[in-house]
């Protein structure tokens, strides 16, 4: 059964799409029904972070083993991660319009962090396209990827913890912290996280296969 994660991802995502809208949720101030966004917005970000981590690991492997396949994989993982950042932004932005009253705000370190990490990965893609030699491209882009990943994590993980964030769960906002998220919600949230991560991994494998077939055809 090497396709188990694909089947699970379909089942989990369908389940969260249906049950995520039907199940009872706790009534919290401001959030109310919009708390259901936790089932979609947060798991998509987790999937993106997962793909970025895969990209980092493949970049490190590309550097240490000097292998072009790892470089291709790192690029594909970054591409899939970047792709996941778009629905992550959209769901967050729509949610923010109805709870914070604005599409985008510069007050929140997480929003700034996301914008910066998207810029970092765009820079990574541009760097890749500006070098022609394959081995050289693999090394240079891997170095940038490792450095950028660390900086992105400083931004996403560390800075928001030092200042108040508008995000639920931070700075005294009501949220899905371990006290607010009841068992009904956990029943949807955890499968949703797994489902989207499996889905991102599936996309990543498809992208890899396409790249390797293309490479073979070119040879």
């Amino acid at each position, binding site marked *: 059964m090497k396709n188990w994660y694909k089947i699970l991802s379909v089942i989990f995502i369908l389940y969260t799409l249906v049950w995520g809208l039907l199940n009872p949720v706790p009534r919290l101030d401001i959030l109310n029904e919009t708390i259901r966004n936790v089932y979609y917005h947060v798991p998509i970000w987790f999937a993106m972070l997962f793909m970025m981590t895969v990209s980092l690991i493949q970049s490190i492997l590309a*550097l240490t083993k000097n292998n072009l396949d790892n470089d291709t994989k790192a690029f594909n993982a970054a591409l899939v991660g970047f792709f996941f950042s778009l629905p992550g932004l959209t769901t967050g932005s729509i949610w923010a319009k109805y709870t914070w009253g604005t599409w985008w705000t510069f007050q929140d370190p997480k929003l*700034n962090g996301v914008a*910066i*990490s998207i*810029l*970092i990965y*765009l*820079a990574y893609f*541009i*760097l890749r396209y*500006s*070098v022609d030699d394959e081995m*050289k491209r693999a*090394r*240079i882009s*891997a*170095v*940038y990827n*490792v*450095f*950028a990943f*660390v*900086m992105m994590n*400083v*931004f996403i993980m*560390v*800075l928001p913890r*030092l200042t108040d964030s508008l995000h639920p769960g931070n700075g005294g906002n009501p949220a899905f912290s371990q006290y607010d998220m009841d068992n009904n919600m956990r029943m949807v949230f955890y499968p949703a996280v797994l489902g989207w991560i499996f889905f991102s991994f599936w996309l990543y494998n498809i992208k890899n296969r396409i790249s390797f077939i293309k490479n073979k055809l070119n040879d």
Partner: protein
Amino acid sequence: MILSLIKKEILLEFRQKSTIGGVLVYVIGTIFVSALCFKGRLDKPTWNALFWVITLYTSVTISGKSFLKETGGQALYNYLHYSPTQFIISKTIYNMVFMLALSFITFFFYAFFIKNEVENLGLFFVVLTLASTGLAAILSLMSAIASKANGNFAIMSILSFPVLMPLILVVIRISKQAVDGIEWAGVGFNFIGILVALNVLTIALSFLLFPYLWRD
């Protein structure tokens, strides 16, 4: 070995008087243009933001060049004679010293032409020091990458702006405290801690990653 490399950098910089003069004229010109645009009507947050924007652009322009001259025969010579870690450490130290001098000069002219809004000067100088070393460390590695990627200036800024953002945001926050004249007891020392940590982290990463950029 590291010292001799730094000495070489300094000698090269001062032998080519056009670069060092160019840098000074660039900084003063930028500040003068901003002074004319704002005509002294700056409040404190704007003063702070403008100062750091000017410093950011100057540092990217200056540090962008630091690896660009190491191409062709020069690169081959370096490759044969020095180890990559010695090379990146000496480049980083040199850039740090250069950026330190430059940011203090920038501050002097900024205070002279526009005005000096800083009330806690000691704190501001601490921030200025840590910011210039951090900028120099990050930009040295970015310049090494950009020089390998055909070394045009656009690549340099595209690569560096996003990775500089964590540093710049922390810097702006503490610098705002210095401008507002917050007493030492109320200063956000955890932010200064982050700045130091970012410096150390960047140097450690350059140390680990630069050897992979070394070979062509």
